[in-house]
């Protein structure tokens, strides 16, 4: 077996091939960790699709009341974020940590305002749902800009426009409409992001 000596290391072509294979395997492991946030998007998409569709077909079923399903989504997102932080974190004092802190404050304030608007201004479940969808999509667009992720920006804009159109044009089928055009797109985007190299 022919070996090459470079800076004291002797290595054959086969060994170089094996080493590159090991690097590729390790890289996949890291990428899976980095992509774990996508699971949160998928689960929220499933919750939205199921709860919106159930609201269309089972409007009297309290099990699928929207506020409960939204709370489940928020609780899962918090749980998943904590779980992810147990293996990976942003280095303290880094530029990224600064951005994370700013974004966390922004999301906190945004959701507080959402609750205020919901309590003070809105009367129906449809109004609350449209506001909630657009608030979450607004956050998705901001996150997409921050992460330089055009898919999130596009998804946020498309879901916002389609949900608003459904609200104004076909209110009798609003729940089914948002199940298809707000819930399913989140599932689709999460699958796309996960499968992407």
């Amino acid at each position, binding site marked *: 077996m*022919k070996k*090459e000596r*470079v*800076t*004291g*290391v002797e*290595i054959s*072509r086969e060994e*170089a*091939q094996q*080493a*590159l294979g*090991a*690097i590729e*395997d*390790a*890289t996949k*492991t*890291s*990428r899976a*960790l*980095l992509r774990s946030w996508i699971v949160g998007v998928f689960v929220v998409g499933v919750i939205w699709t199921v709860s919106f569709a159930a609201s269309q077909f089972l409007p009297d079923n309290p099990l699928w009341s929207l506020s409960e399903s939204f709370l489940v989504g928020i609780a899962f997102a918090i749980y998943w974020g904590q779980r992810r932080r*147990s*293996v*990976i*974190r*942003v*280095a303290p004092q*880094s*530029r*990224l*940590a600064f951005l994370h802190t700013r974004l966390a404050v922004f999301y906190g304030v945004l959701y507080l305002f959402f609750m205020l608007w919901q309590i003070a201004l809105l009367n129906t479940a449809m109004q609350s749902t449209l506001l909630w969808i657009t608030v979450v999509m607004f956050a998705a667009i901001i996150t997409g800009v921050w992460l330089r992720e055009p898919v999130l920006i596009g998804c946020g804009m498309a879901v916002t426009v389609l949900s608003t159109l459904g609200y104004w044009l076909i209110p009798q089928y609003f729940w089914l409409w948002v199940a298809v055009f707000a819930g399913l797109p989140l599932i689709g985007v999460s699958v796309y992001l996960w499968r992407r190299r």
Partner: protein
Amino acid sequence: MATLNEVIHQPARLRIMAVLAAISPERQVTFGFLKEACGLTDGNLGAHLRRLEEAGYITIVKTFVRQKPQTYIQITEAGRAAFEEHRAALQAILESA
């Protein structure tokens, strides 16, 4: 021309560096995650991490999270550059044959 790196070439350290290099520069992973990702024991991983830290390729941060000790590992800029050079050297060997 890129050259092979004796410190990184060792298989366990190569895997450790590959895992760390695939993570963005401003992120740190836990000792537990690296142990699982690289399939190493605590003692083995600790020894390889010390070697990489001595070479200036990683930084090790020991801290407390919710009153429990936690160790985070982060690749340095020098480590990332050394790893990329090592990878380029491996690639060059493949292409030269």
